[in-house]
């Protein structure tokens, strides 16, 4: 098969998106929905069909030249290699299931064409990021996912808060994009190319200080999309969007784009220990920050949002520790169980009568279909890292990589990771108990759950639980499939003695158990939440929003006022008006000479005549002196 057919993978969702955009409302609803699902499912099938292309060195396909000017020669090209293939499969697969879920979730929505076309467009943009051969196509996808998340978060635009949440997401990620763009420009200036594979090949010939700078810029760019410190304020508010959006964008795909970027450029980024430490540090700090915030959240989706932030922090820590395979492993398992959690949360919200507050829920095992509880629990145990689940192995892999890192400073990060794991278990089971245990505390009426909202959860829960098989560590008898698949792209090979490995596993089990018991002790029997200063602090995300508002938003608006009213109106226009007034002032002075009176003019005559006469006489006298 021709390798240009690889372009069908991203183009299929794009075409379906465009068709839905233009014709969606005129076609029967079923047609639009089927089209949307086919777009993504078709891409999934194509990825499976073309899987062989990814083996070995991968396959590169070029569509046509995008920009050609001077030394710039960039085409639309994609690179289907061993790093991209599993990610593509995951994105298209999870997206297909979420599309099915969304069909059920949005069955009462009138504006469905816009929703499904944006969802498909998002998948296209994400695939552009994953499959991009050069950084400019990646940037196209990068901005594209930003745009789609803006459109999807603010989907119910009639409420101003939703629109504002969308704007916030766009702007905060755009700040990150600036750093990515600077890195892009810099890399082009140094290497003369934007092709990722060539940059990675030339990485060793770039001077170390430049490598550090570029890596830090890439890190900041990744932080924007992955909602890591300091660009994380948008993720919690992004929960204003419909639940399928949160599941797709903020669990499985967009927030992992940053991790993927760093993995893609790993040969460059890994050259600098400073950058790697920075990546790990940011991951660690974000992980613990988000975990503490999740402890105090009241809305179910916000808990999950902060937990996503925390888990992506783990992925960053893995990259920083040098293990690409570990990061991607956790990325894949996290996608599965977090998507399940979000979708189940959507069902839960439906059952609670559109109520978001977990303190007003409870006893939902009995209110809804019983399978919902089991599915939610499956996701929760993966998140908490209970033994033998997918989340357990992936998280343990990361902690092992941190623990066995040559640099002893990484033990600090390992410790932070361990503490965060404890907190994770705690808030996860807090969530489970508050939502499902005890008696129903709210006043809402349950809405019926369409079938499409229930059965896509099963495959995902299943895969999430069994996800450990992807990269089962050798010492428990596994074959480390993922690591071997990535081969030379996998980063550092984590070698540890059996004692260390067993010790860490036991520690992980102990932590999960402790966290569970603590949550059980605190939340099994319902107690009203305390509203003290600490919980408010954590609830508001350590007041990060307020800080950003004071530090950036207000001065920005003030500067706008200054430029517009202060400078333009007062200074520039004022100067011009002043000049004009001066001119009119002079003219009104001079105009006093024209009195319109005959006598004035006659006297002017006479005086002028006298002056002329005097001048002539003077000339005569001085001339006659010779």
């Amino acid at each position: 098969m021709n390798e240009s057919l690889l372009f069908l993978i991203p183009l299929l969702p794009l075409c379906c998106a465009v068709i839905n955009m233009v014709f969606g409302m005129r076609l029967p609803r079923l047609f639009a929905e089927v089209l949307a699902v086919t777009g993504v499912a078709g891409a999934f099938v194509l990825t499976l069909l073309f899987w062989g292309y990814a083996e070995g060195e991968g396959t590169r396909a070029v569509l046509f030249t995008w920009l050609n000017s001077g030394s710039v020669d960039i085409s639309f090209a994609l690179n289907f290699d061993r790093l991209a293939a599993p990610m593509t499969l995951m994105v298209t697969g999870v997206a297909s299931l979420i599309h099915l879920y969304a069909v059920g979730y949005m069955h009462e929505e009138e504006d469905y064409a816009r929703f499904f076309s944006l969802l498909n467009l998002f998948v296209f943009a994400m695939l552009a990021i994953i499959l991009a051969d050069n950084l400019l196509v990646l940037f196209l996808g990068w901005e594209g996912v930003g745009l789609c998340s803006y459109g999807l978060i603010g989907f119910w635009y009639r409420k101003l808060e939703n629109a504002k949440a969308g704007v916030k997401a766009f702007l905060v990620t755009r700040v990150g994009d600036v750093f990515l763009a600077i890195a892009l420009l810099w890399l082009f200036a140094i290497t003369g190319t934007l092709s990722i594979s060539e940059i990675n090949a030339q990485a060793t010939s770039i001077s170390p200080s430049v490598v550090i700078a570029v890596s830090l810029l890439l890190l900041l760019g990744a932080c924007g999309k992955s909602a890591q410190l300091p660009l994380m304020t948008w993720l919690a508010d992004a929960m204003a969007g419909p639940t399928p959006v949160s599941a797709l964008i903020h669990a499985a795909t967009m927030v992992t784009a940053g991790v993927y970027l760093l993995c893609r450029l790993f040969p460059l980024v890994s050259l600098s220990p400073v950058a790697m430490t920075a990546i790990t540090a940011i991951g660690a700090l974000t992980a613990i920050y988000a975990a503490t915030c999740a402890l105090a959240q009241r809305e179910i989706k916000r808990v999950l949002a902060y937990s996503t932030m925390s888990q992506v922090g783990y992925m960053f820590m893995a990259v920083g520790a040098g293990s690409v395979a570990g990061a991607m492993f956790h990325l894949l398992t996290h996608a599965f169980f977090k998507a399940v959690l979000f979708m189940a949360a959507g069902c839960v919200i439906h059952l609670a009568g559109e109520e978001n507050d977990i303190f007003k829920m409870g006893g939902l095992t009995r209110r809804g279909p019983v399978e919902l509880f089991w599915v939610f629990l499956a996701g929760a145990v993966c998140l908490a890292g209970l033994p033998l689940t997918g989340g357990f192995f992936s998280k343990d892999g990361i902690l092992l990589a941190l623990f066995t890192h040559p640099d002893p400073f990484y033990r600090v990060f390992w410790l932070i990771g361990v503490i965060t794991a404890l907190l994770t278990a705690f808030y996860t089971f807090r969530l489970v108990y508050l939502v499902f245990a005890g008696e129903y505390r709210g006043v809402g009426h349950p809405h019926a759950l369409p079938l499409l909202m229930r059965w896509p959860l099963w495959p995902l829960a299943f895969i999430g639980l069994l996800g450990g098989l992807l990269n089962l560590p050798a010492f428990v008898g596994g074959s480390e499939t993922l690591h071997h698949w990535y081969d030379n792209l996998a980063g550092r090979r984590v070698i540890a003695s059996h004692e260390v490995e067993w010790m860490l596993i036991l520690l992980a089990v102990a932590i999960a158990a402790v966290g569970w018991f603590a949550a059980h002790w605190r939340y099994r029997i319902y107690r009203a939440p305390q509203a003290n200063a600490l919980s408010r602090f954590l609830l508001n995300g350590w007041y990060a929003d307020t800080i950003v508002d004071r530090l950036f938003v207000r001065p920005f608006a003030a500067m706008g006022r200054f430029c517009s009213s202060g400078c333009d109106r007062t200074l520039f226009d004022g100067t011009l008006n002043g000049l004009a007034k001066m001119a009119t002032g002079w003219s009104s002075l001079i105009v006093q000479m024209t009195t319109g009176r005959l006598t004035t003019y006659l006297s002017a005559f006479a005086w002028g005549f006298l002056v002329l006469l005097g001048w002539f006489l003077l000339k005569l006298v001085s001339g006659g002196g010779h």
Partner: protein
Amino acid sequence: MTELTSLPQFPWLSLLVVLPLAGALLCLMHRKRPADCRALSLATSLAVFGVALYLFICHGQGEGRWLLYEDVSWIERYGARYVLALDGIALLMVLLTSFMQVSAVLLAWRVERHVSSFFALLLLLEAGLMGIFLAYDLVLFYLFWEVALIPMFFLISVWGGANRRQAALKFFLYTLVGSFFMLIAIIALYQIHGAQSGVYSFVIGDLLQTQLTAAQEGWLFAGFMAAFIVKSPLVPFHTWLTDALTESPAAGSLDLTGLLLKTGIYGLIRVAFPLFPNATESFLPILAVFALVGLFHAAWSAYHQDDIKRLLAYSSISHLGLVVLGLAAWQLTAWEGSILLMVTHGITTGALFVLVALIQERTGTRSMKELGGLWGQTPCLGFLFLLFSLASLGLPGLANFAGEILVLLGTFQQHPFWAVIALLGVVFAAAYMLRLVQGVLWGPVYKERSLPDLTLREWIILLPMAILVVWMGVYPEPFLAPMHGTVASLLAGGLP
């Protein structure tokens, strides 16, 4: 230049200038029949667009400095010749002008008062603009420069908004003062050249060889820059534009932002930089500072605005700041990006002004406080508004991004610091554009009004622009190709 005197072929370039003039005259003769005037001006502008398209397709690739060249003797006594010259950059500008004029004529279809005069002025404006882009003789250039000014003044002061008299007068006097200094510089250059070489000529090609002392060059350059800086516009000489754009009628804003502003920058490329290479070299950093200050100042001011037309006026200034930055970088990729950005900016911002005019027609207001939730009421209009706003803020895959990224890539290679600062301005563009979209499209509906969605005429105006926006974002190659040779030779400074 001697080998390129009048080629015995059809005078396409003169046709570009004469057709609109003829159309204008015919319009004036049909005062009593407004329907005829409309049809006539549409036919004329379509004919001009056809000629421009023909030139683009058939003469777009040429060897040598010029694609087409027409040279006829005019005022022999003073050495002023009628010289029209077309190269890659002028070709793009001509194409843009003719395209935007068709849209302007369609947009002005519903003008009620003094219809024949309105269309006559529009066509006269087109003739003037074509002349500016094509003229290669300084007297001819100056003539067309002023010719383009007068119809704009009348368009604003007769058919404009509430504050039109002041805005029109400000616009006129401001740009006139600038061009007055240019006139002095033209005459001075003419005299110096004539005294040196014995040949008194106004043709730019001849004047390129003038030997100037540093002081002379500095002053003459300043004279020309006075006109171009005001027209570009560069902050702090931009306040005329915000008022003029806000108060002018819809078709007038389209022309003003899409075309008239480009003449200032075009003047830099065609006249100021080639004639005074040393002064240019020393001035480039200052130009970059002006450009960056303009980028940020305009972006901040845009963020503060409530009137959507004024916001778009400031966004124009901001984008053109980026264009001038690309020019100041003096690098091939940056120059090509700047010129491409000029073209795409004309289309995207022009389309946004069209949409604002449509919104104002329907809702009667331009204030964001009184708009909102328009997406639900007029989905097609809302979608196009979103599309062009995204293009304007530089979303990859849409028009402005191609130009912007080329400018940034090129600038970074020469002056990385400038490119980094300019990138920050990109975030600002997102801030005010999203604020615009939010104020107009999202949020609760301000007042329940029954608003018709786009009519056929409006679709005809906007759909080609939308297609172009996507085309130029994804495949700008046809528009970049004519420029390569021209830009390379302009930057090298060596001209035939």
